[in-house]
């Protein structure tokens, strides 16, 4: 990866971090409703994986999706507008925090029923295979999703039909508040892929360059040989969602992981490797702070979606019922 790409990647991770911190504040102020799942601590996963994709490769993820959206190339202001429920948001204000997508960026959501999007990934990869297009579908999901039926049915189908899917398990150690070992028969989650004959590996997820390199190889494998499974070891610094009392883990544990901050690790890497100077990185960070400020302003000033907008999203074709949607 050249210097310019590295600095873009650094800026993107910092942008995710700041966006999430600002979102938490807006949530406390009551400007964001519903659930809010922050990506703080996991930035290197989405950024590292997506840096290795071609634009034609599809991306899907679960409900912790703002960071993935940014990494997929969606503008911060559009993410922010969705968080505020505005018409200018990714999903016109109908999806909220958990349901962001942008088909033009090949980012297919943002899905909040645990595991439900894994079958979509199989189906999208099938569509590519059907049309003889060599796209890869990259499907992110949490450790918690590997215990649900969708996971097993989708992995099995991807192997039986030899579908071009990269399965990416973001193992952040807890499914909500339940530790992996308390919920999963196998603690080394990537080994579940062995049950379906899918090659797999486990990767340190706090170092974005390691994630990137693993993703590059894995995507190459998928494009040429079929499905692959990556387990990325990571950690979320904030609660599962806003208002999580975090009774299931200690401050010491969180503190240990914070010493391995993916943004800090990458900063050190860039400085030590002579890829960038302090001033350069600080300037990038200041630019991010301005961008977030503008994003909030854009979101706050954006129009609300209308009732008419909502009705128009439900069906494509004529809907003959005089009472509907009364």
């Amino acid at each position: 990866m050249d210097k310019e790409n590295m600095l873009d990647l650094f800026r993107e991770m910092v942008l995710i971090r700041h966006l999430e911190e600002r979102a938490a504040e807006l949530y406390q102020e009551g400007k964001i409703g519903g659930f809010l799942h922050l990506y703080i601590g996991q930035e290197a996963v989405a950024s590292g994986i997506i840096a290795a994709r071609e634009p034609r490769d599809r991306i899907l993820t679960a409900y912790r999706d703002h960071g993935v959206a940014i990494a997929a190339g969606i503008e911060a202001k559009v993410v922010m507008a969705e968080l505020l429920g505005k018409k200018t948001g990714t999903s016109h204000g109908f999806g909220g925090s958990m349901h962001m997508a942008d088909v033009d960026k090949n980012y297919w959501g943002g899905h909040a029923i645990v595991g439900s999007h894994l079958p979509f990934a199989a189906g999208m990869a099938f569509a590519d295979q059907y049309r003889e297009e060599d796209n890869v579908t990259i499907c992110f999901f949490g450790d918690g999703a590997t215990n649900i039926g969708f996971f097993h049915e989708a992995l099995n189908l991807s192997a039986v039909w030899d579908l071009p899917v990269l399965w990416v398990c973001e193992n952040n150690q807890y499914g909500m508040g339940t530790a992996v070992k308390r919920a999963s028969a196998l603690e080394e989650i990537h080994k579940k892929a062995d049950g379906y004959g899918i090659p797999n590996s486990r990767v340190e997820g706090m170092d974005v360059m390691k994630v990137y390199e693993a993703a590059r190889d894995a995507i190459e494998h998928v494009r040429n040989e079929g499905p692959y499974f990556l387990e990325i070891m990571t950690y979320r610094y904030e609660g599962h969602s806003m208002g999580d009392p975090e009774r299931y883990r200690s401050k010491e544990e969180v503190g240990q992981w914070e010493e391995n901050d993916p943004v800090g690790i990458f900063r050190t890497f860039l400085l030590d490797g002579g890829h960038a100077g302090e001033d350069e990185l600080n300037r990038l960070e200041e630019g991010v702070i301005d961008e977030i400020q503008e994003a909030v302003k854009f979101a706050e000033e954006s129009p609300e979606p209308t009732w008419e907008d909502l009705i128009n999203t439900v069906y494509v074709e004529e809907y003959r019922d005089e009472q509907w949607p009364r």
Partner: protein
Amino acid sequence: MAKITMREAISQALWEEMERDESVFIMGEEVGIWGGTYAVTRGFYDHFGEKRVRDTPIAEMVIVGAANGAAMAGLRPVAELMTINFAFVAMDQIVNQAAKLRSMFGGQFTLPLVIRTVGGGGRQLAATHSQTPDAVFAHFPGLKVVAPGTPHDAKGLLKSAIRSDDPIMFIENATLYQVRGEVPEEDYLEPIGVSKVQRAGDDVTIITYSKMLQYSLDAAEELAKDGIEAEIVDLRTLRPLDMKPVIDSFKRTNRAVIVEEGWRSYGVGAEVAARLYEEAFDYIDAPIRRVAQKEVPLPYNQALEQEALPQREDIIEAVKGIV
């Protein structure tokens, strides 16, 4: 016009649409080499090949889920669920996903998806294999639910469903596959969401669909012997519910019996009756009656199963009670 069976009509619709559009494919349990458990897709695998006739594992969540994904990615899947009872295994993918993906993402996804499935009781398959839960699926905005009662409508509606850009549950009835009816030789479509008068009459309006259309037609012939002429409105589509022909008929007959194979509570009859009260209250001359399945899990025992299912005699009795 040729008289063909419902099975042949549905098979022709699938075949013709696959010939017409390369993006149409079928997937499901035993749709390929087996030829379909109800023989609807016999010959498809040899003609269209494995690429377009996909045998799947017995895994309903991923059958519908992968069909959702393939539809979002631009294909036109016809996903078959061997029976509607197995649709409950895939309920999340049907009601949480297919019905909502378009709206929840601001309209950017399109799901040109057909879920073909088979409902109905009366074949001694016991409680979990005999259900008619059509109304359950009709509850969810975002889906369309089609349930034809004649070969003509089955063919025309299935072709429309495959060409539609909305996700559609297409519910067949296992005991109708042998029913014969006239089907045009030429290409034709029937519009989704349009109810149809299948028999004219002035004394009472029978509102029904799917298998109960056949029962209602039989009952109407019996009633005619007693000088009672029933008008039969076939809903054909449960969502959207086209009430106009129903209300037009009811305004003339002022009497209604709603006949469905599923359970009575919260059913199709409940919805249609409520709409009649809301929209035609001044025309009501007699209590609106419902004929439906008695509310028990259907037993294996043949006599008891038939006891629980709605019969032609129940329709006749209900009509005679209000005319």
